[in-house]
């Protein structure tokens, strides 16, 4: 397991001892996604996932608190789907109807962009699978998120070399 950080995104690389089709299912089949996605002590009572380009997603995370169960809803859209290879989707906080809420409305900590993008890249290692997940804090509507990311990486490296 290795991790690399860039200035504007989280990049996590992992190798799973499972075939690539199973890892793909982890992300694209709601019953599997719901099984691992929620934080410890939480459940995913709703995971509606229309895994088609332009298809929407609505995920509910439920946590038990001393004041009773607390629900958080997330919505988004699938942007790129290349089976067993590459999945790109967006994520925003939402209400249970899937209407986007601003992070400030939700009382989220400072520095939380309204919409983020998750990029999952899979590589078949013959029975094992290498997965690279990138979570980008980029406004999803902005053109060329990938180019944006590369430009910022370059800039981040320059900034690091100066500070």
């Amino acid at each position, binding site marked *: 397991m290795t*991790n690399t*950080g*860039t*200035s*504007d*995104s*989280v990049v*996590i690389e*992992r190798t*799973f*001892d*499972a075939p690539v089709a*199973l*890892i793909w299912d*982890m992300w694209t089949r709601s019953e*599997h996604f719901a*099984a*691992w*996605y929620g*934080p*410890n002590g939480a459940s995913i009572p709703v995971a509606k996932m229309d895994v088609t380009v332009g298809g929407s997603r609505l995920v509910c995370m439920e946590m038990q608190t001393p004041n009773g169960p607390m629900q958080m809803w997330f919505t988004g859209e699938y942007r790129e789907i290349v089976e067993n290879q590459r999945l790109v989707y967006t994520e925003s906080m939402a209400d249970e109807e899937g209407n986007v809420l*601003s*992070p*400030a409305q939700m*009382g*989220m*900590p*400072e*520095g*939380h*962009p*309204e919409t983020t993008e998750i990029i999952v890249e899979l590589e078949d290692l013959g029975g094992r699978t290498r*997965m690279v*997940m990138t*979570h980008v*804090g*980029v*406004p999803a509507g*902005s*053109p*060329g998120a990938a*180019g*944006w990311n590369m*430009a*910022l990486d*370059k*800039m*981040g490296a*320059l*900034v690091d070399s*100066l*500070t």
Partner: protein
Amino acid sequence: MTAVLDEDRLSETFAALANSTRRAILARLAEGGASVNELASPFALTLPAVSKHIKVLERAGLVSRGQRAQYRPCTLDATRLEEISAWAEQYRPIWEDRFDRMDDYIRQLQQATKDGTTQ
């Protein structure tokens, strides 16, 4: 500074960065300060157009301008970029936990399949 104000600031930073010309200007400034004229030369842009981009970057806190009236060099302000970096880092432990659970879940599934076939 309240969380709401910080949130607005961050949105402004992201909006300012969502433009390839402005990112190129920042990349140029990462190499050192420059005047508006110097910044305009590599781009097929008029001085007013470049000035406009610089104003957006200034409002977003990414660029500072010198105070001399004739020659006001632009310099990169890295503080906002660090704020974005802080945003990204708060997600790392969340994803690491999720992938630990994915790994456990996969093992359970594989074990179940194995048990199913051997019985």
